[in-house]
């Protein structure tokens, strides 16, 4: 159970870790858009730029590269599937051998599809590796702030998000414990899918009840401290903008602009 790493935060004091989370989220989105924009004749240059960008980001974040690559493992099936579909169904270009059904263009296209997915996942996981769940919730709150104008409860939304994130490890631990307790009473979690689903009932019900209990306790604890997400609420830790955010903004902006220019989308 413990292997399920969500919120896989890798603590450090690097340049990237110290960035403003709102900016980091924004720039990650920009980067992902950049990766998807790569097309046209110069696509290899665009991809190269993205690869270099993500590598530089990893190095400045002082996160071991294997941690970033680990996130790819989870989606490897998806990557292979997209690549294989591309190989079989793309009929552009010339066949690799006589009467062959695989064309050269299809092969290249499948390679780039795989690369595109991997680049996106690397970027996203770099964000979660360098930004703690609480910071992500904070950043989201800042980014969603304009929605307050249409009366969307942004603060409450961010609060729900950070509470949910906070409780994921707790719930995993609890699941682990309940599974052990039921195993001690002879429950078995092996066998066919139907048997497995049935075996999960003695785990899921206590887990659900535990969650309600926790929610109740948390609500009481917040109430008794007079919590309210009112307008004049101040932050304990104010996240301002620093030179780091400015530098990153310029570099990422440069990347996206570069990709767009390489595409020739913007014809001057």
């Amino acid at each position, binding site marked *: 159970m413990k292997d399920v790493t969500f919120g896989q935060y890798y603590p450090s004091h690097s340049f990237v870790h110290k960035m403003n989370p709102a900016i980091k989220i924004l720039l990650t989105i920009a980067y992902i858009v950049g990766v998807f924009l790569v097309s046209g004749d110069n696509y290899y240059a665009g991809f190269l730029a993205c690869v270099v960008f993500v590598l530089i980001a990893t190095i400045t974040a002082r996160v071991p590269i294997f941690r970033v690559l680990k996130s790819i493992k989870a989606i490897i099936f998806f990557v292979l599937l997209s690549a294989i579909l591309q190989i079989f169904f793309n009929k552009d270009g010339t066949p690799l051998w006589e009467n062959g059904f695989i064309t050269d263009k299809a092969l290249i296209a499948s390679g780039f599809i795989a690369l595109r997915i991997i680049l996106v996942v690397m970027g996203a996981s770099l964000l979660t590796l360098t930004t703690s769940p609480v910071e992500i919730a904070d950043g989201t709150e800042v980014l969603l702030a304009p929605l307050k104008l249409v009366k969307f409860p942004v603060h409450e939304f961010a609060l729900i998000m950070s509470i949910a994130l906070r409780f994921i490890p707790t719930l995993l631990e*609890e699941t682990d*414990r*309940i599974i*052990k*307790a*039921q*195993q*001690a*009473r*002879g*429950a*078995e979690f092996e066998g066919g899918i139907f048997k497995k689903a049935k075996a999960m*009932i*003695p*785990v899921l*019900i*206590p887990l659900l*009840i*535990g969650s309600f209990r926790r929610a109740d306790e948390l609500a009481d604890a917040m109430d008794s401290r007079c919590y309210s997400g009112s307008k004049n609420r101040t932050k304990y830790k104010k996240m301002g903008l620093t030179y780091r955010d400015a530098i990153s903004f310029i570099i990422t902006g440069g990347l996206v602009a570069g990709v767009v220019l390489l595409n020739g989308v913007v014809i001057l």
Partner: protein
Amino acid sequence: MQVKIENLSYSYGSKKLKVKAVNDICLEIKEGEFFGVVGHTGSGKSTLIQHLNGLIKVQKDSGKVIVGEYDLTDKKCDFKGLRAKVGMVFQYPEYQLFAETVFEDVKFGLKNFYPNLTEKEMEERIKKAVETVGLDYEKIKEKSPFELSGGQKRRVAIAGVIVSRPEVLVLDEPVAGLDPTGKREFVSLLHALHNDFVKTIIIVSHDMNLIAENCDRVAVLNKGNLVKVGTPKEVFMDKVKVEEWGLELPSTAYLTEKLREKGIEIDSDLTIKGFIDGYIRAKGGEK
């Protein structure tokens, strides 16, 4: 059933980030013992005892665990049979309740272990278990476990473990969160169980008074190492060592220590009764 642990080690985590939780432990617990396991938080108590019913599997080349005729290092070990014989009660056992009625919940373990029993036999056993934990069977059997009080829930959960008549009962911090009365009731429940339900009791607790009062022998863990095994008297004799292990003295040992400073030497087994007898003896009085 005798419990035999030979050179047991266990590490959590991957190859890169290894946390050694249990380190080269040799321990024997005889049938019929009321055995205590103590140690500072994180010292490896839970890890150690979860080996006893195979919830944690013995790692490769990390020693041996033998419980009765079950060799847990054996690949073909019948873990289900073992778990029927070694019951385990976790901290806050009431959090494992899930069924619609108390009856169904207690039945869960029994049905898992002995699916071939007739309904009548099952009911008899369930009745016995529920009554043994001190609840009124007729009154409670159709109730939802979730409408009971905390103490009642805990009893139901324990009934759900002992219903399969384990020979060894392992309890991991079972008195956490109980008030003094609840604690006392729980301990007398354990003694009742020890006399006619289970043979061996192994209890992990941070409550040194409970340990000194009830255990025949105690094992002390410190940072994954087994640093002492013996009677409570042997274990709590050396105040300096006890502090070094991150433990407290039980009240009786503390008083013995204080009285020694005043020049009164008391020899006792550190139970309250033993202590009082020892005090009377030291004072030269008659009982």
